[in-house]
């Protein structure tokens, strides 16, 4: 019975991707059991789940890159809020067309990420502290830009009188669905982010540098890897992803809310870790992050469909994160 096919299968089953997939499959089985009167078997439920996790998933892509360098980025939720507010502010009261507003917001997000990266790489401050500070700073900036209020299509004009302006088309466009109403645009944005991250990590020299820095920074330095530059680019990428997520968030909420996204960084970290990426750096991939995103997305959807009480949801989510990580560690302890 120990033919070559069998051993190859066993070998594959021991890979992080296979284990992450098994966890996801288990979650789907749970969904089939607790199907809320058959609701779980309808495509619209899965479509909505994919829309709902997209913003988290985009954050998780950037988070994967940073965690691979043995860092962490706590600022993503605040950069998301700042980007949502910035996007709403530029397109609504300022009346900028989307083709200008989107790049501007992306540049701001990337810039904030670069600042974090520079403080980590050049000033040698711990990533946790740097991004904690950036988290507080960006949230404050979001409140300054918005004046503490949500930015909606109810705009105060030059005459001091507030009036309704038509919602720019870009909001509805990002929040719409394609392929016969079966796939949300934000889900496509999420998948594009996964693809871009995968290309960077698996196909570019930058990706090899990221793994090298996270695996052993000193060894990477000695073998000629530009450590500082790699770190800065990693945090800049995370900032860029947070800005993308912020635009998606604003479009879905039809407003720029300075309070939005509170705590999203923890969801993003959980999604990365469930996928099997090590917080110690150097080990992991965006493919497993994608599976982690889906696993948590399904968990939340199943709990919501069954109208589980909030307390139950929190306890189950905590327990399942631990189970998934243990499952992921499996035999290579």
């Amino acid at each position, binding site marked *: 019975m120990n033919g070559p096919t069998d051993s190859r299968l066993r070998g594959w089953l021991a890979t992080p991707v296979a284990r992450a997939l098994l966890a996801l499959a288990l979650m789907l089985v749970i969904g089939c059991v607790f199907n809320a009167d058959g609701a779980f078997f309808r495509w619209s439920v899965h479509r909505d789940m994919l829309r709902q996790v997209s913003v988290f998933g985009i954050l998780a892509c950037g988070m994967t890159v940073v965690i691979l360098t043995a860092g962490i980025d706590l600022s993503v939720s605040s950069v998301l809020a700042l980007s949502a507010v910035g996007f709403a502010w530029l397109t609504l009261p300022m009346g900028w067309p989307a083709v200008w507003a989107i790049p501007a917001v992306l540049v701001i997000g990337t810039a904030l990420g670069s600042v974090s990266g520079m403080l980590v790489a050049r000033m040698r401050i711990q990533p946790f502290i740097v991004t904690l500070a950036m988290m507080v700073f960006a949230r404050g900036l979001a409140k300054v830009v918005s004046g503490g209020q949500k930015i*909606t299509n109810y705009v105060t004009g030059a005459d001091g009188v507030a009036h309704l302006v038509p919602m720019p088309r870009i909001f509805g466009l990002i929040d719409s669905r394609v392929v016969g109403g079966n796939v949300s645009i934000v889900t496509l944005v999420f998948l594009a982010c996964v693809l871009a991250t995968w290309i960077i990590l698996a196909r570019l020299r930058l990706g090899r540098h990221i793994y090298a820095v996270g695996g052993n920074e000193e060894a990477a330095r000695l073998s000629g890897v530009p450590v500082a530059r790699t770190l800065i680019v990693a945090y800049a990428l995370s900032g860029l992803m947070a800005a993308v997520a912020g635009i998606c968030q604003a479009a879905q909420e039809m407003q720029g809310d300075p309070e939005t996204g509170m705590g999203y960084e923890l969801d993003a970290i959980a999604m990365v870790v469930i996928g099997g990426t090590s917080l110690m750096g150097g080990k992991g991939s965006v493919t497993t992050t994608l599976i982690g995103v889906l696993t948590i997305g399904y968990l939340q959807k199943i709990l919501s469909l069954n*109208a589980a009480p909030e307390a139950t949801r929190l306890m189950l989510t905590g327990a399942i994160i631990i189970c998934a990580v243990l499952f992921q560690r499996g035999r290579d302890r």
Partner: protein
Amino acid sequence: MRVILRRSGSRPGGMALVAAGAVVLVTACAGGAPKKHAGTAEDPWVIGMSQCNLGEPWRVQMDADVRAAAEKHSNLKVIFKDAQNSSLTQRAQVEEFVDQGVDLLIISPKEAAPLTQPVAAAYQKGIPVIVLDREVQGDQYTQFIGADNVRIGREAGRWIRETLGGQGKIVELEGLMTSTPGQDRHQGFLEGLDLEHNPGLQIVFTGEMKWLEPDARTEMESALATNDHIDLVYAHNDPGAHGAWLAAKAAGREGEMKFVGIDGLPQEGQQYVAQGILDATFLYPTGGDVAIDEALKILGGQQVEKKIVLGTRIFTKDNIQQGGQPITN
């Protein structure tokens, strides 16, 4: 007696605080009671307004209401502070206001237990205190002004029962159910619906959206997936109702049902009603304007009631242009 001058934090008017503090310092050194202002345009009364959290739009509105009401009176000056959702910060702010010798203190406390003592200390030093929205324990304050969430929930429930004609499937999207407003808006809603005598009414889905719009949208998607027909969505706040509408719209089902929210902020719920997104919203008044009216009475030496319960107002498509309809009973 020594007076310690504190930095005033991030609010504008810091210079005024330092100036006010300096006045107290001088008078305190002279050994008398803190000097009160005359209440004229040259020497206006100074009111300290301690807000527990300006992160919430409703509380931003409360400060705006206080500011707008105070600007009508040249003999009043209000100093605003934001405790940023920290009881200890708010406690320090109350003590600062006392040290600075304000003529009257308005506080919207974050929570009762940690702020009861500082409020009582200010009150015992002869500073009148108006407590807004959330109560403190005991009776060591001048006046409490607040709305009644149970009553507002009951009015919403009653309106829903009458609008649906006692027949229909309802989704309830709850605020944070560990918070008193969430519990009260739920309890009042059930009282107003009176399910016992209206068997045709049915709550088909309940989800906790924790006051958050994205969470409301997610919960509503589940409600839509598990129910082929929904007649009405009742959300404990307007962002929740708006999130539900977004979900229904994405499913192409927004015309099937009505949407009802609570809070009725001018730039939020009232706008949603004006745009035809919500069918009704019920005002949760901030009391900011009432607080200034009452403050003037107190400073003028009049006796005021110990407790004022604010009424609510309903906003619908028909009355939104007239500023809503007060509910009195």
